[in-house]
Protein backbone atom coordinates (compact mmCIF):
# COMPACT_ATOMS: atom_id res chain seq x y z
CA UNK A 1 0.00 0.00 0.00
CA UNK A 2 2.74 2.49 0.89
CA UNK A 3 4.39 2.28 -2.54
CA UNK A 4 1.57 3.62 -4.73
CA UNK A 5 0.40 5.92 -1.95
CA UNK A 6 3.77 7.57 -1.83
CA UNK A 7 3.84 7.95 -5.58
CA UNK A 8 0.38 9.54 -5.63
CA UNK A 9 1.34 11.97 -2.92
CA UNK A 10 4.47 13.29 -4.59
CA UNK A 11 2.61 13.60 -7.86
CA UNK A 12 -0.25 15.45 -6.21
CA UNK A 13 2.24 17.62 -4.34
CA UNK A 14 3.95 18.62 -7.56
CA UNK A 15 0.62 19.33 -9.17
CA UNK A 16 -0.33 21.61 -6.30
CA UNK A 17 2.96 23.53 -6.09
CA UNK A 18 3.65 24.16 -9.76
CA UNK A 19 0.49 25.54 -11.34
CA UNK A 20 -0.49 27.13 -8.04
CA UNK A 21 1.95 29.94 -8.72
CA UNK A 22 0.49 30.46 -12.17
CA UNK A 23 -3.13 30.02 -11.18
CA UNK A 24 -2.84 32.43 -8.25
CA UNK A 25 -3.38 35.31 -10.69
CA UNK A 26 -6.23 33.46 -12.34
CA UNK A 27 -7.88 32.85 -8.98
CA UNK A 28 -7.83 36.53 -7.99
CA UNK A 29 -11.34 37.97 -7.93
CA UNK A 30 -10.65 40.42 -10.74
CA UNK A 31 -14.37 41.04 -11.17
CA UNK A 32 -14.46 42.21 -7.57
CA UNK A 33 -11.68 44.70 -8.14
CA UNK A 34 -13.48 45.96 -11.23
CA UNK A 35 -16.75 46.43 -9.34
CA UNK A 36 -14.93 48.14 -6.48
CA UNK A 37 -13.18 50.43 -8.97
CA UNK A 38 -16.51 51.36 -10.58
CA UNK A 39 -18.03 52.03 -7.14
CA UNK A 40 -15.00 54.13 -6.13
CA UNK A 41 -15.26 56.16 -9.31
CA UNK A 42 -18.95 56.78 -8.68
CA UNK A 43 -18.20 57.74 -5.09
CA UNK A 44 -15.61 60.27 -6.23
CA UNK A 45 -18.05 61.82 -8.69
CA UNK A 46 -20.78 62.03 -6.03
CA UNK A 47 -18.37 63.53 -3.51
CA UNK A 48 -16.81 66.10 -5.84
CA UNK A 49 -19.53 67.16 -8.29
CA UNK A 50 -22.07 69.44 -6.62
CA UNK A 51 -25.04 68.35 -8.75
CA UNK A 52 -24.39 64.66 -7.98
CA UNK A 53 -24.01 65.48 -4.30
CA UNK A 54 -27.37 67.21 -4.34
CA UNK A 55 -29.04 64.23 -6.04
CA UNK A 56 -27.52 61.95 -3.41
CA UNK A 57 -28.90 64.07 -0.57
CA UNK A 58 -32.37 64.07 -2.09
CA UNK A 59 -32.46 60.34 -2.84
CA UNK A 60 -30.80 58.85 0.24
CA UNK A 61 -33.77 59.26 2.66
CA UNK A 62 -35.56 56.64 0.54
CA UNK A 63 -33.17 54.03 1.90
CA UNK A 64 -35.17 53.59 5.09
CA UNK A 65 -38.19 52.39 3.11
CA UNK A 66 -36.08 50.24 0.81
CA UNK A 67 -34.40 48.51 3.75
CA UNK A 68 -37.58 48.36 5.82
CA UNK A 69 -39.65 46.86 3.01
CA UNK A 70 -36.91 44.34 2.26
CA UNK A 71 -36.54 43.18 5.87
CA UNK A 72 -40.25 42.88 6.61
CA UNK A 73 -40.98 41.15 3.30
CA UNK A 74 -38.07 38.75 3.83
CA UNK A 75 -39.27 37.66 7.28
CA UNK A 76 -42.83 37.27 6.02
CA UNK A 77 -41.79 35.38 2.89
CA UNK A 78 -39.68 32.97 4.96
CA UNK A 79 -42.74 32.23 7.10
CA UNK A 80 -44.90 31.72 3.99
CA UNK A 81 -42.12 29.79 2.25
CA UNK A 82 -41.67 27.43 5.19
CA UNK A 83 -45.37 26.60 5.33
CA UNK A 84 -45.69 26.23 1.54
CA UNK A 85 -42.39 24.34 1.26
CA UNK A 86 -43.46 21.81 3.89
CA UNK A 87 -46.82 21.59 2.15
CA UNK A 88 -44.97 20.91 -1.08
CA UNK A 89 -43.33 17.80 0.44
CA UNK A 90 -46.41 16.75 2.42
CA UNK A 91 -47.73 13.21 1.96
CA UNK A 92 -51.28 14.61 2.04
CA UNK A 93 -52.26 15.07 -1.61
CA UNK A 94 -54.65 17.95 -0.91
CA UNK A 95 -52.06 19.94 1.01
CA UNK A 96 -49.34 19.10 -1.49
CA UNK A 97 -51.44 20.17 -4.48
CA UNK A 98 -52.53 23.37 -2.77
CA UNK A 99 -48.86 24.23 -2.24
CA UNK A 100 -47.94 23.36 -5.84
CA UNK A 101 -50.85 25.42 -7.16
CA UNK A 102 -49.68 28.47 -5.22
CA UNK A 103 -46.05 28.07 -6.25
CA UNK A 104 -46.77 27.46 -9.93
CA UNK A 105 -49.29 30.31 -10.08
CA UNK A 106 -46.71 32.77 -8.76
CA UNK A 107 -43.97 31.41 -10.99
CA UNK A 108 -46.18 31.71 -14.05
CA UNK A 109 -46.89 35.45 -13.80
CA UNK A 110 -44.38 38.33 -14.12
CA UNK A 111 -43.48 39.94 -10.81
CA UNK A 112 -44.58 43.36 -12.04
CA UNK A 113 -47.99 42.01 -12.99
CA UNK A 114 -48.35 40.19 -9.65
CA UNK A 115 -47.58 43.38 -7.74
CA UNK A 116 -50.20 45.34 -9.68
CA UNK A 117 -52.67 42.50 -9.33
CA UNK A 118 -52.19 42.12 -5.59
CA UNK A 119 -52.09 45.85 -4.84
CA UNK A 120 -55.05 46.87 -6.99
CA UNK A 121 -57.23 43.75 -7.17
CA UNK A 122 -56.50 41.26 -4.39
CA UNK A 123 -56.03 43.70 -1.52
CA UNK A 124 -59.15 45.77 -2.39
CA UNK A 125 -61.14 42.53 -2.67
CA UNK A 126 -59.72 41.35 0.65
CA UNK A 127 -60.50 44.60 2.41
CA UNK A 128 -64.06 44.49 1.05
CA UNK A 129 -64.49 41.03 2.51
CA UNK A 130 -62.98 42.09 5.83
CA UNK A 131 -65.05 45.28 5.84
CA UNK A 132 -62.04 47.60 5.93
CA UNK A 133 -62.18 50.78 3.84
CA UNK A 134 -59.90 50.18 0.87
CA UNK A 135 -57.94 53.41 1.29
CA UNK A 136 -57.09 52.42 4.87
CA UNK A 137 -54.49 50.01 3.50
CA UNK A 138 -51.36 52.06 2.74
CA UNK A 139 -49.44 51.44 -0.49
CA UNK A 140 -46.37 50.35 1.52
CA UNK A 141 -48.43 47.59 3.14
CA UNK A 142 -49.82 46.47 -0.20
CA UNK A 143 -46.36 46.31 -1.64
CA UNK A 144 -45.02 44.32 1.32
CA UNK A 145 -47.94 41.88 1.04
CA UNK A 146 -47.26 41.48 -2.68
CA UNK A 147 -43.51 40.94 -2.30
CA UNK A 148 -44.04 38.49 0.58
CA UNK A 149 -46.54 36.41 -1.36
CA UNK A 150 -44.26 36.36 -4.42
CA UNK A 151 -41.06 35.56 -2.56
CA UNK A 152 -42.90 33.09 -0.32
CA UNK A 153 -43.33 30.92 -3.42
CA UNK A 154 -39.65 31.22 -4.38
CA UNK A 155 -38.51 30.44 -0.86
CA UNK A 156 -40.92 27.49 -0.66
CA UNK A 157 -39.00 25.91 -3.51
CA UNK A 158 -35.74 26.52 -1.64
CA UNK A 159 -37.08 24.78 1.46
CA UNK A 160 -38.44 21.93 -0.63
CA UNK A 161 -35.03 21.39 -2.20
CA UNK A 162 -33.40 21.57 1.23
CA UNK A 163 -35.73 18.95 2.70
CA UNK A 164 -35.30 16.69 -0.33
CA UNK A 165 -31.51 16.98 -0.05
CA UNK A 166 -31.55 15.37 3.40
CA UNK A 167 -30.85 11.65 2.88
CA UNK A 168 -33.89 9.37 3.05
CA UNK A 169 -32.18 7.34 5.79
CA UNK A 170 -32.56 10.25 8.22
CA UNK A 171 -36.35 10.02 8.12
CA UNK A 172 -36.14 6.22 8.36
CA UNK A 173 -33.82 6.40 11.37
CA UNK A 174 -36.14 8.85 13.11
CA UNK A 175 -39.27 6.82 12.36
CA UNK A 176 -37.66 3.55 13.41
CA UNK A 177 -36.93 5.09 16.82
CA UNK A 178 -40.66 5.67 17.22
CA UNK A 179 -40.65 9.40 16.42
CA UNK A 180 -43.68 10.55 14.44
CA UNK A 181 -43.33 12.00 10.95
CA UNK A 182 -43.83 15.52 12.34
CA UNK A 183 -41.33 15.02 15.17
CA UNK A 184 -38.73 13.69 12.74
CA UNK A 185 -39.34 16.64 10.41
CA UNK A 186 -38.92 19.15 13.21
CA UNK A 187 -35.98 17.67 15.11
CA UNK A 188 -34.01 15.92 12.38
CA UNK A 189 -34.88 16.93 8.82
CA UNK A 190 -35.54 20.67 9.12
CA UNK A 191 -32.41 21.60 11.12
CA UNK A 192 -30.30 19.92 8.46
CA UNK A 193 -32.34 21.36 5.59
CA UNK A 194 -32.15 24.93 6.90
CA UNK A 195 -28.40 24.69 7.20
CA UNK A 196 -28.02 23.69 3.57
CA UNK A 197 -30.41 26.36 2.27
CA UNK A 198 -28.89 29.33 4.13
CA UNK A 199 -26.80 30.50 1.14
CA UNK A 200 -29.80 30.16 -1.18
CA UNK A 201 -31.89 32.20 1.26
CA UNK A 202 -29.12 34.80 1.30
CA UNK A 203 -29.27 35.03 -2.48
CA UNK A 204 -33.03 35.47 -2.36
CA UNK A 205 -32.56 38.23 0.18
CA UNK A 206 -30.40 40.03 -2.39
CA UNK A 207 -33.00 39.49 -5.12
CA UNK A 208 -35.67 40.76 -2.77
CA UNK A 209 -33.65 43.91 -2.06
CA UNK A 210 -33.39 44.56 -5.78
CA UNK A 211 -37.05 43.81 -6.45
CA UNK A 212 -38.02 46.22 -3.69
CA UNK A 213 -37.30 48.89 -6.34
CA UNK A 214 -40.65 47.88 -7.86
CA UNK A 215 -42.20 49.87 -5.01
CA UNK A 216 -42.05 52.74 -7.46
CA UNK A 217 -44.96 51.09 -9.31
CA UNK A 218 -47.17 51.96 -6.35
CA UNK A 219 -45.60 55.34 -5.74
CA UNK A 220 -43.99 54.21 -2.50
CA UNK A 221 -41.08 56.55 -1.76
CA UNK A 222 -38.20 54.11 -1.61
CA UNK A 223 -34.83 54.86 -3.20
CA UNK A 224 -36.04 54.30 -6.74
CA UNK A 225 -39.20 56.36 -6.38
CA UNK A 226 -37.17 59.14 -4.75
CA UNK A 227 -34.79 59.14 -7.70
CA UNK A 228 -37.63 59.23 -10.20
CA UNK A 229 -39.36 62.07 -8.36
CA UNK A 230 -36.09 63.96 -8.36
CA UNK A 231 -35.66 63.58 -12.14
CA UNK A 232 -39.23 64.77 -12.59
CA UNK A 233 -38.53 68.11 -11.00
CA UNK A 234 -34.85 68.59 -11.90
CA UNK A 235 -34.45 66.65 -15.18
CA UNK A 236 -31.04 65.53 -13.86
CA UNK A 237 -31.23 61.96 -15.12
CA UNK A 238 -27.47 61.33 -15.09
CA UNK A 239 -27.15 62.36 -11.47
CA UNK A 240 -30.26 60.58 -10.17
CA UNK A 241 -29.68 57.24 -11.81
CA UNK A 242 -25.94 57.10 -11.19
CA UNK A 243 -26.57 57.70 -7.49
CA UNK A 244 -29.35 55.11 -7.51
CA UNK A 245 -27.15 52.51 -9.21
CA UNK A 246 -24.32 53.28 -6.80
CA UNK A 247 -26.53 52.72 -3.77
CA UNK A 248 -28.02 49.40 -4.93
CA UNK A 249 -24.70 48.05 -6.16
CA UNK A 250 -22.86 48.81 -2.93
CA UNK A 251 -25.59 47.12 -0.88
CA UNK A 252 -25.78 44.00 -3.06
CA UNK A 253 -21.98 43.72 -3.24
CA UNK A 254 -21.63 43.66 0.53
CA UNK A 255 -24.47 41.16 0.82
CA UNK A 256 -23.17 38.80 -1.83
CA UNK A 257 -19.72 38.79 -0.22
CA UNK A 258 -21.41 37.87 3.06
CA UNK A 259 -23.30 35.05 1.36
CA UNK A 260 -20.06 33.74 -0.16
CA UNK A 261 -18.45 33.83 3.26
CA UNK A 262 -21.38 31.92 4.73
CA UNK A 263 -21.18 29.36 1.95
CA UNK A 264 -17.47 28.84 2.58
CA UNK A 265 -18.04 28.42 6.32
CA UNK A 266 -20.85 25.90 5.81
CA UNK A 267 -18.79 24.04 3.24
CA UNK A 268 -16.00 23.59 5.77
CA UNK A 269 -18.20 22.72 8.75
Amino acid sequence: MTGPDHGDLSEAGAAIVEPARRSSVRDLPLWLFAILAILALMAVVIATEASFGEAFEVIIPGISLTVGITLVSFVASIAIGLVAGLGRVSRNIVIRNLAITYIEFIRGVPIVVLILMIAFVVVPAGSRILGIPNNAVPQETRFIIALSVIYGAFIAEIFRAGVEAVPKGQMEAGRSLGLTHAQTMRSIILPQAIRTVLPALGNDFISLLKDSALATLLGVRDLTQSARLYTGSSFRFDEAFLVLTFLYLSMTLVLSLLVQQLQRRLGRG
Partner: protein
Amino acid sequence: MAESAARPEIGPDDRIVVDHLWKSFGTIQAVRDVSLRIRTGTVTVIVGPSGSGKSTVLRCMNHLEVPTSGAVYIDGVHLGDRRTNINLIRREVGMVFQQFNLFPHLSVLDNITLALRKVRGRSKTEAEAIAMAQLQRVGIPEQARKRPGQLSGGQQQRVAIARSLAMNPRVMLFDEPTSALDPEMIKEVLDVMQELAASGMTMVVVSHEMGFARQVGSHMVMMDQGRIVEEGAAEDVFARPQHPRTKEFFSKIL
Protein backbone atom coordinates in the same frame (compact mmCIF):
# COMPACT_ATOMS: atom_id res chain seq x y z
CA MET B 1 -54.81 -5.08 3.19
CA ALA B 2 -54.55 -8.66 4.44
CA GLU B 3 -57.35 -8.13 6.94
CA SER B 4 -59.42 -10.85 5.35
CA ALA B 5 -56.65 -13.44 5.42
CA ALA B 6 -56.74 -15.86 8.30
CA ARG B 7 -54.54 -14.90 11.20
CA PRO B 8 -51.70 -17.37 11.59
CA GLU B 9 -51.24 -19.20 14.82
CA ILE B 10 -48.97 -17.15 17.06
CA GLY B 11 -47.38 -18.77 20.10
CA PRO B 12 -46.15 -16.95 23.21
CA ASP B 13 -42.57 -17.37 22.02
CA ASP B 14 -43.16 -15.87 18.60
CA ARG B 15 -41.72 -12.35 18.71
CA ILE B 16 -42.14 -11.72 14.99
CA VAL B 17 -44.33 -13.64 12.58
CA VAL B 18 -44.07 -12.92 8.89
CA ASP B 19 -47.06 -14.40 7.11
CA HIS B 20 -47.17 -14.88 3.33
CA LEU B 21 -45.38 -11.61 2.70
CA TRP B 22 -45.29 -10.21 -0.83
CA LYS B 23 -43.66 -6.95 -1.77
CA SER B 24 -43.26 -5.40 -5.17
CA PHE B 25 -41.67 -2.15 -6.28
CA GLY B 26 -43.37 -1.19 -9.51
CA THR B 27 -42.94 -4.22 -11.75
CA ILE B 28 -40.18 -5.77 -9.63
CA GLN B 29 -41.24 -8.56 -7.29
CA ALA B 30 -38.81 -8.10 -4.38
CA VAL B 31 -40.38 -10.57 -1.96
CA ARG B 32 -42.52 -13.56 -2.96
CA ASP B 33 -44.60 -15.32 -0.35
CA VAL B 34 -42.18 -15.27 2.56
CA SER B 35 -43.30 -16.72 5.89
CA LEU B 36 -41.00 -16.68 8.88
CA ARG B 37 -41.09 -16.97 12.65
CA ILE B 38 -38.62 -15.16 14.89
CA ARG B 39 -38.68 -16.69 18.37
CA THR B 40 -37.78 -14.70 21.46
CA GLY B 41 -34.10 -14.82 22.33
CA THR B 42 -32.94 -16.19 18.97
CA VAL B 43 -30.52 -14.69 16.50
CA THR B 44 -31.77 -15.15 12.96
CA VAL B 45 -29.33 -14.42 10.19
CA ILE B 46 -30.78 -13.83 6.73
CA VAL B 47 -28.31 -14.46 3.92
CA GLY B 48 -28.54 -14.49 0.16
CA PRO B 49 -27.23 -12.74 -2.93
CA SER B 50 -27.96 -9.05 -3.40
CA GLY B 51 -31.40 -8.46 -4.79
CA SER B 52 -32.75 -11.57 -3.10
CA GLY B 53 -35.20 -9.51 -1.02
CA LYS B 54 -33.60 -10.04 2.39
CA SER B 55 -33.36 -6.35 3.28
CA THR B 56 -36.92 -5.80 2.11
CA VAL B 57 -38.19 -8.56 4.42
CA LEU B 58 -36.28 -6.95 7.30
CA ARG B 59 -37.62 -3.48 6.49
CA CYS B 60 -41.16 -4.85 6.43
CA MET B 61 -40.62 -5.97 10.03
CA ASN B 62 -40.94 -2.38 11.26
CA HIS B 63 -43.04 -1.12 8.37
CA LEU B 64 -40.34 0.98 6.75
CA GLU B 65 -41.70 -0.92 3.78
CA VAL B 66 -45.41 -1.65 3.66
CA PRO B 67 -46.14 -5.16 2.35
CA THR B 68 -48.00 -5.44 -0.94
CA SER B 69 -49.83 -8.36 0.61
CA GLY B 70 -49.40 -10.65 3.56
CA ALA B 71 -48.75 -9.52 7.11
CA VAL B 72 -46.15 -8.98 9.78
CA TYR B 73 -47.02 -9.48 13.46
CA ILE B 74 -44.86 -8.29 16.33
CA ASP B 75 -45.82 -9.79 19.67
CA GLY B 76 -49.11 -10.69 18.04
CA VAL B 77 -49.86 -7.17 16.81
CA HIS B 78 -50.62 -6.90 13.11
CA LEU B 79 -48.50 -3.99 11.80
CA GLY B 80 -50.71 -3.36 8.77
CA ASP B 81 -53.92 -3.13 10.80
CA ARG B 82 -55.51 0.31 10.65
CA ARG B 83 -55.91 0.29 14.43
CA THR B 84 -52.21 -0.35 15.01
CA ASN B 85 -50.23 2.73 16.02
CA ILE B 86 -46.99 2.01 14.21
CA ASN B 87 -45.08 4.55 16.32
CA LEU B 88 -45.82 2.51 19.43
CA ILE B 89 -44.49 -0.66 17.76
CA ARG B 90 -41.37 0.96 16.34
CA ARG B 91 -40.15 2.19 19.70
CA GLU B 92 -39.97 -1.48 20.74
CA VAL B 93 -38.10 -2.51 17.60
CA GLY B 94 -34.50 -1.34 17.21
CA MET B 95 -33.14 -0.85 13.70
CA VAL B 96 -29.51 -0.58 12.65
CA PHE B 97 -28.81 0.52 9.08
CA GLN B 98 -25.99 -0.16 6.67
CA GLN B 99 -25.29 3.59 6.39
CA PHE B 100 -25.62 4.15 10.18
CA ASN B 101 -28.06 7.04 9.62
CA LEU B 102 -26.83 8.98 12.62
CA PHE B 103 -28.10 12.54 12.88
CA PRO B 104 -25.10 14.62 11.73
CA HIS B 105 -26.27 17.90 13.29
CA LEU B 106 -26.48 16.41 16.81
CA SER B 107 -23.76 15.24 19.18
CA VAL B 108 -23.37 11.52 19.79
CA LEU B 109 -25.09 11.98 23.13
CA ASP B 110 -28.01 13.92 21.61
CA ASN B 111 -28.38 11.28 18.89
CA ILE B 112 -29.17 8.82 21.64
CA THR B 113 -31.20 11.05 23.96
CA LEU B 114 -33.49 12.54 21.28
CA ALA B 115 -35.95 9.64 21.08
CA LEU B 116 -35.64 8.89 24.81
CA ARG B 117 -36.90 12.38 25.53
CA LYS B 118 -39.41 12.81 22.73
CA VAL B 119 -40.77 9.26 22.58
CA ARG B 120 -40.18 7.86 26.05
CA GLY B 121 -40.72 11.19 27.80
CA ARG B 122 -37.52 10.94 29.85
CA SER B 123 -35.98 14.00 31.45
CA LYS B 124 -32.68 15.31 30.09
CA THR B 125 -30.75 13.92 33.06
CA GLU B 126 -32.37 10.48 32.87
CA ALA B 127 -31.90 10.31 29.11
CA GLU B 128 -28.23 11.25 29.37
CA ALA B 129 -27.63 8.65 32.06
CA ILE B 130 -29.20 5.96 29.87
CA ALA B 131 -27.25 7.17 26.85
CA MET B 132 -23.94 7.11 28.71
CA ALA B 133 -24.67 3.58 29.97
CA GLN B 134 -25.29 2.42 26.38
CA LEU B 135 -22.17 4.17 25.10
CA GLN B 136 -20.26 2.37 27.85
CA ARG B 137 -21.77 -0.87 26.67
CA VAL B 138 -20.58 -0.36 23.08
CA GLY B 139 -17.22 0.81 24.38
CA ILE B 140 -17.06 4.49 23.36
CA PRO B 141 -18.28 6.66 26.27
CA GLU B 142 -15.45 9.12 25.62
CA GLN B 143 -16.99 10.08 22.24
CA ALA B 144 -20.26 11.36 23.73
CA ARG B 145 -19.67 15.05 23.02
CA LYS B 146 -18.41 14.63 19.47
CA ARG B 147 -20.37 14.93 16.26
CA PRO B 148 -20.91 11.70 14.30
CA GLY B 149 -18.76 13.06 11.46
CA GLN B 150 -15.72 13.07 13.74
CA LEU B 151 -15.99 9.32 14.39
CA SER B 152 -14.75 6.35 12.40
CA GLY B 153 -17.28 4.17 10.61
CA GLY B 154 -17.03 1.45 13.22
CA GLN B 155 -17.56 3.94 16.03
CA GLN B 156 -20.53 5.47 14.19
CA GLN B 157 -22.17 2.08 13.80
CA ARG B 158 -21.62 1.39 17.51
CA VAL B 159 -23.32 4.70 18.31
CA ALA B 160 -26.21 3.65 16.07
CA ILE B 161 -26.49 0.39 18.00
CA ALA B 162 -26.35 2.27 21.32
CA ARG B 163 -29.06 4.64 20.05
CA SER B 164 -31.37 1.71 19.34
CA LEU B 165 -30.52 -0.12 22.57
CA ALA B 166 -31.25 2.98 24.64
CA MET B 167 -34.92 2.58 23.73
CA ASN B 168 -34.81 -0.82 25.44
CA PRO B 169 -36.26 -2.63 22.41
CA ARG B 170 -37.69 -6.14 22.46
CA VAL B 171 -36.05 -7.01 19.17
CA MET B 172 -33.17 -5.59 17.15
CA LEU B 173 -33.08 -5.55 13.35
CA PHE B 174 -29.73 -5.20 11.60
CA ASP B 175 -29.65 -4.33 7.89
CA GLU B 176 -26.17 -5.25 6.64
CA PRO B 177 -24.58 -3.49 9.62
CA THR B 178 -20.97 -4.08 8.53
CA SER B 179 -21.27 -3.73 4.75
CA ALA B 180 -20.27 -0.04 4.69
CA LEU B 181 -17.28 -0.55 6.99
CA ASP B 182 -13.57 -0.84 6.31
CA PRO B 183 -12.38 -4.39 7.04
CA GLU B 184 -10.51 -3.46 10.22
CA MET B 185 -13.67 -1.96 11.73
CA ILE B 186 -15.98 -4.86 11.08
CA LYS B 187 -14.81 -6.79 14.10
CA GLU B 188 -15.52 -4.06 16.65
CA VAL B 189 -19.13 -3.93 15.45
CA LEU B 190 -19.52 -7.71 15.32
CA ASP B 191 -18.11 -7.95 18.85
CA VAL B 192 -20.81 -5.60 20.11
CA MET B 193 -23.46 -7.64 18.29
CA GLN B 194 -22.08 -10.87 19.72
CA GLU B 195 -22.24 -9.46 23.24
CA LEU B 196 -25.81 -8.37 22.55
CA ALA B 197 -26.76 -11.85 21.36
CA ALA B 198 -25.17 -13.37 24.46
CA SER B 199 -27.30 -11.10 26.63
CA GLY B 200 -30.41 -12.75 25.20
CA MET B 201 -31.54 -10.04 22.78
CA THR B 202 -33.80 -11.21 19.97
CA MET B 203 -32.03 -10.27 16.77
CA VAL B 204 -32.67 -10.45 13.04
CA VAL B 205 -29.54 -9.79 11.01
CA VAL B 206 -29.18 -9.38 7.28
CA SER B 207 -25.50 -9.95 6.71
CA HIS B 208 -22.77 -11.31 4.52
CA GLU B 209 -20.61 -12.09 7.55
CA MET B 210 -20.59 -15.87 7.45
CA GLY B 211 -18.23 -16.14 10.42
CA PHE B 212 -20.69 -14.17 12.52
CA ALA B 213 -23.65 -16.15 11.19
CA ARG B 214 -21.93 -19.39 12.11
CA GLN B 215 -20.71 -18.31 15.55
CA VAL B 216 -23.62 -16.23 16.77
CA GLY B 217 -26.56 -17.21 14.65
CA SER B 218 -29.05 -19.64 16.09
CA HIS B 219 -31.24 -19.68 13.02
CA MET B 220 -30.38 -19.19 9.40
CA VAL B 221 -32.53 -18.18 6.46
CA MET B 222 -31.28 -18.38 2.90
CA MET B 223 -33.13 -16.23 0.37
CA ASP B 224 -32.93 -16.12 -3.40
CA GLN B 225 -35.05 -14.21 -5.90
CA GLY B 226 -37.50 -13.06 -3.24
CA ARG B 227 -38.11 -16.49 -1.75
CA ILE B 228 -36.80 -18.41 1.20
CA VAL B 229 -35.01 -21.37 -0.33
CA GLU B 230 -33.76 -22.90 2.90
CA GLU B 231 -33.96 -22.29 6.62
CA GLY B 232 -33.08 -24.08 9.79
CA ALA B 233 -30.69 -24.16 12.72
CA ALA B 234 -27.60 -22.19 11.69
CA GLU B 235 -25.19 -25.08 12.30
CA ASP B 236 -27.28 -27.50 10.24
CA VAL B 237 -27.64 -25.18 7.28
CA PHE B 238 -23.92 -24.55 7.37
CA ALA B 239 -22.86 -28.12 7.80
CA ARG B 240 -25.42 -29.71 5.48
CA PRO B 241 -26.98 -27.22 3.07
CA GLN B 242 -29.81 -29.05 1.31
CA HIS B 243 -30.82 -26.73 -1.49
CA PRO B 244 -28.51 -26.51 -4.50
CA ARG B 245 -28.81 -22.70 -4.48
CA THR B 246 -27.55 -22.59 -0.87
CA LYS B 247 -24.64 -24.91 -1.71
CA GLU B 248 -23.72 -22.75 -4.67
CA PHE B 249 -23.96 -19.56 -2.59
CA PHE B 250 -21.77 -20.94 0.18
CA SER B 251 -19.21 -22.25 -2.27
CA LYS B 252 -18.93 -18.77 -3.75
CA ILE B 253 -18.58 -16.73 -0.59
CA LEU B 254 -16.83 -19.08 1.83
